[in-house]
């Protein structure tokens, strides 16, 4: 998967099921919203909480920037991947495979 695919997936913010409801039920504060960002990106908010989350975002540049930073963070963490397999280790693994197969065939 390329990082662009990943970004697309991160950006989607899937619609979700169960909810850790925020106490109250009125408008979210910024301080409450930052604690819900992962649940939002994971699609784990109730439809009510998701609506309140998105309603807050529309009027709040700070939270919009925060959410973008969290998406950027996920992208950057994904960039850490990608060590190639050490050929010597692969050979050891292939040796134990041949060993397993020869004993199995007996």
């Amino acid at each position, binding site marked *: *998967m390329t*990082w662009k695919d*990943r*970004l697309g997936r991160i950006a989607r913010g*899937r619609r979700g099921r169960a909810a*850790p409801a925020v106490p109250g039920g009125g408008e979210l*504060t*910024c*301080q*409450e919203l*930052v*604690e819900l*960002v*992962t*649940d939002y990106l*994971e699609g*784990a908010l109730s439809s009510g909480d998701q609506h309140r989350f998105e309603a807050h975002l529309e009027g*709040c*540049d*700070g*939270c919009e*920037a*925060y959410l*973008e*930073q*969290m998406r*950027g*963070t*996920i*992208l*950057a*963490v*994904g*960039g*850490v*991947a*990608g*060590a*190639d*397999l050490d050929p010597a*280790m*692969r050979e*050891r*693994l*292939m040796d*134990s*495979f*041949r060993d*397993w*197969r020869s004993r*199995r*065939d007996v």
Partner: protein
Amino acid sequence: MVPVDRGSSPEPARPAEGGWTDDAGLIEALRKGDEAAYRALVDLHTATLLRLASMYVSNHELAADVVQETWIGVLQGIDRFEERSSLKTWICRILVNKAKTAAQREGRAITFSELGDDELAPAVDPERFHALGPDRGQWSLAPQEWDRPEERLLSRETRAVVERAIADLPTNQRITITMRDIEDLSSAHTCSVLGISEGNQRVLLHRARTHVRAALEAYFSDVTDTP
């Protein structure tokens, strides 16, 4: 053939070398002792397994031993594998069991079920919100959009910042963010392998991501301030 958008499918089948596109084909080939199938599987998963093993044990050699034991466990168990989970989930679960045993031998124990005090820490420093008055809970020091994010987030220097931030995390958070955001494994897979609930996993992931975000924010503001 036209590529299909798999939508929210958690683990899209990646075509492996040799043309096995699904678990069933690989499992069948492996049971027949097909070396190319095994090599494809090793190439596909060993880097992930090594990274996970190194979270549990203290050095690279021990991690490599755990991975070696895991692959032997896979071969010994393949005939009995009932395909109730994906092949990858099953392999990772074998790894986690072997890694925990190795960690215990070293006197290192990792518990996933308990969330430490750290899990209650706020995502963002409370000082950055108004504490009183009509604006209580609103930003007093709001985050700024990062400049040229794609280019900077994937730079070598940023990568080092991210690696350091992840290395600082408590073990259970480090393993969770590694599985989800580095190895790009699904939430279902991660919960199944680690034996934790979805909710528990989200808390760990949230804490881990917010810690890395804070490190990146600090790094980018330093970089910006330097002429």
